[in-house]
């Protein structure tokens, strides 16, 4: 780890102004991705702005037909939320499958989304559920948020404060885990929303993406049989030691199929 200045602001304003002052300052929420990369000297920051002391950033509530999750809500809280198990079980299940208990006890939803790891789980839920990212400056639509590998629409001194999820009729997330890291080789989030089905894939490409052909087919008929004969147009996919691009492409199809089956087996809300 390289030397850095540590800050622990107690308000969003202070946090934002600390970030604004230093081009190489980095906000830290749970630190579950940031700290390992710093310890390995893979990243170097002049300042780390710890968001832990800022009040009112965590919690899960239902409001006007939406689920609102505070940015500093930890994975374990999402995984065990009675509200989510009743209204959006797919998201609770997704959170339960992130990392290990240590990571789930510290890692947060806002941190994960802002980090935009191509193999992270949450981005698929944000896009599939057509969520809105609420920040210190504005509201950003899910489809406009993830812009590249570890890249988002967030400005340097802009912080996520909450995620506002639409409540789907039915949804499911299925993850095919990387055998070594257990991150998603492919994670498929399928959500039957009011009027349309959305399919979002994480792990396979440089960032989360939707599959229009599948969404159209599933909007007509929400069953895995509806996918037969549909050829999805996929972006350029990742290749690593454990999964080549064409294997990933096949796994995308398979995991969407499984997610549709799992979602279809649920009671519609």
């Amino acid at each position: 780890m390289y030397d850095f200045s540590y800050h622990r602001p107690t308000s969003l304003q202070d946090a934002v102004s600390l970030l604004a002052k230093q081009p190489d300052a980095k906000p830290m929420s749970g630190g579950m991705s940031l700290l390992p990369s710093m310890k390995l000297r893979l990243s170097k920051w002049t300042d780390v702005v710890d968001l832990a002391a800022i009040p009112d950033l965590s919690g899960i509530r239902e409001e006007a037909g939406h689920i609102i999750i505070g940015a500093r809500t930890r994975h374990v809280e999402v995984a065990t939320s009675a509200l989510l198990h009743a209204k959006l079980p797919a998201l609770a299940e997704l959170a339960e499958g992130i990392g290990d208990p240590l990571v789930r006890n510290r890692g947060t939803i806002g941190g994960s989304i802002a980090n935009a790891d191509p193999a992270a789980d949450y981005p698929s839920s944000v896009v599939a559920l057509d969520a809105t990212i609420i920040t210190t400056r504005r509201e950003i639509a899910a489809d406009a948020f993830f812009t590249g590998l570890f890249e988002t629409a967030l400005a340097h001194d802009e912080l996520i404060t909450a995620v506002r999820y639409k409540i789907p009729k039915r949804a499911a997330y299925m993850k095919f885990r990387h055998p070594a890291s257990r991150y998603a080789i492919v994670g498929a989030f399928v959500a039957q929303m009011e009027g349309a089905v959305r399919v979002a894939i994480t792990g396979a490409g440089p960032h989360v993406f939707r599959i229009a052909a599948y969404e159209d087919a599933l909007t007509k008929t929400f069953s895995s049989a509806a996918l037969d004969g549909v050829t999805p147009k996929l972006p350029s996919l990742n290749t690593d030691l454990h999964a080549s691009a064409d294997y990933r492409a096949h796994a995308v199809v398979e995991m969407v199929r499984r997610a549709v089956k799992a979602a279809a087996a649920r009671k519609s809300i």
Partner: protein
Amino acid sequence: MAATTKTTGIGAALRRKEDLRLITGRGEFTDDFREAGQLYIYFLRSPHAHARIIKIDATEALALPGVKSVLTGKELLADGIKPLPHHVWALHPADIAMPNVDGSETFMAPHHAIAVDKARHVGEIVAMVVATSVALAKDAAELIHVEYDILPSVTNTWDTVKQDAAVVWDENGSNVCGDVETGSREDTNAAFAKAAHVARIETWVQRVTGVPMEPRAALAVFDEGTGRVTLTAGSGGSVRLKYDLAHMLGMKSEDVRIIMKDVGGNFGTRGMIYAEFCLVGWAARRLKTPVKWTAERSESFQSDYQARDLAVTAELALDKDGKFLAMRGSNIGNAGAHTSNFSPLQKGVEIMTSIYNIPTACFRARPVVSNTLPTRPYRSAGRPEVMFVMERLIDIAAREFGFDRVELRRKNLLHKEDLPFKNPFGMIYDNGDYHAVMEQVLELGDWTGFEARRAEAKARGKLRGIGVANYVDTATGVPRERAEITVRPDGQVDVIIGTISQGQGHETSFAQLATEFLHVPEDKVNIITGDTDVVKVGGGTHSGRGMRLASIVIWKASNEIIAKGKRIAALMAKADPAQVTFEKGHFHAAGQSLSLFDVARAASERNDLPDDLRAPLYAMSDETVNEAAFPYGAHVCEVEIDPALGTVEIARYSTVDDVGRAVNPMIIHGQTHGGIAQGVGQALMEEIVYDRQSGQLMTGSFMDYTMPRADNFPFFDAGFAEIPCTTHPLGIRPAGEGGTTPALGVTMNAVVDALRDFGVTHMDMPATPEKVWRAIHRKA
């Protein structure tokens, strides 16, 4: 599990005495030790697989306040630090000799602790930084400017022997360090000429790494007053490390002390002195300050000795009825960048034919070097590789020529009447009942009920497969071991022994030996190991030698304790020594009953004893055991494959290992379970990958290197046989490696069986999901 009702001594399934201490954080691992004023070491390692070192400039690094020293190969040579004292071949009298066909010497090159002329693998040490903190040492390392001349590299084993391969050691002119032929070429070729069938395999048993839970660490202290260096470090044994360290530092062995308390895993890859251990000792002596080094996991991946890596082509000749006639082939063992250890090649090739009755065989064996981490013996060195080859060949033959896999094994497995049996390479198997053990595991694994399970799985869209594999293991290793036993008047028995537990449970199982022989409760027996000021002789823990040799010397020393005790008891009771008996911990003499500790007290308090009985009540046994042991057994593995993604699940796994006589059945089962995980890990998951072009290590962390985890396995059906070993006075056979030895072959036999409808006859390890998926979908 063999039925046992014993609650004490040999055969009792006692819970491990050490576990409460270890699981409550009271273990004493190397990094737990610290010295006032200690400095910290960080090693600058080569980022290149093969590069000439032109110039090292540490000026900026040395200018950082708190940086005490930067040492390179130049200082190493100037201080006369010697290369690592590798023992390239196993020298046990039972192992075969490995002379080159052309009579030349095996090529060996000096392995300096810091690269002197060239860096020969990614991770080779180029400079050592000593500073007041680890972070500062790392900062300094980034300021060291090394000018490299990057050279072409070679990492892949098949590539090493090609004409145009990059040459790792210019002094040798090629990467081939030896060319050995074992067995009889003439007889073998004659047998092949008459064969009705020939089964063939070409395979690479991939490279893996050991991954002990505790990364390596070392703490060295130099005492200016006595001139002694004390090194605290974990290894496979302390006594050899003392001699090796003294050798490298150019010191007398009595001026080096090794302290080794708890060691978190070895598996063989940790079994030898490492460059870092010497460098830490050198730095402490040179700077006259305690110094400490602790590896991080990513450092372990690029500095721990690696393992396996054997390229094999082999053929099995059969007559029309399936009788094995002969076997031949060629093994290339990739030793990595240094000529450090070729014994896995040797220990494999000497038992290529396993426990089958194959009259003649001939194999070529070539140790080669490459731009990779050096390799070392690892959990049953060399044997899992060749058992994999043999067991795969049998399944290939069965499939290709229409034999039943089990019947083919029954037809060719050696019978107990054939034993002892000299195999075509000259190894003499002791005793056992190979047929009975295989039948026992087929029963345990419900072989006959399998087709119903296959059909049931098929109905669920899954591909189920089953495999069976036999194995034999050659347990040799350092032949000498010593035990010293002292019976203390305060009711404790101290046993000093030259092995080291790296998780094997010696504090419990060795105590059970003393309990068996001296009738003292296990909790009164203290197993003392690891400090070379106390332990003078001992070969460490490897090669199935821990229990095998410890049991002999503890038994003999116990017998001497009893013999001495009888003489003392006779004096105490004024009885004839010949009439004294020892039963249940008491000497009975002339109507008196004297406990072992009464006698020990008398020995220390009475002044009328002959000189050789004067206090304390002590005995030593120092034995050199030149006989090998040949533990064997059979495993059955059942897998279920999801054809949609190619994922392989272990559905059932059954084992029967002949342990001769189980000292602690629970500990044996634990070692078997861990061994299976290591073997199945190699079959399905683990692989050290180097980029074939650049020589870069691609699997440098757990993000890419797949470690098996508990959820990869079902509950195991582990059984064992107890047919007393005829070459061990107590009948004990080594039990620590049986879990691994057949696991590679049996798992892959099951995988290939599951894929039989897709035209798959063989698959190189590891059977990763993508590889299996490609096989199913017939994609290249």
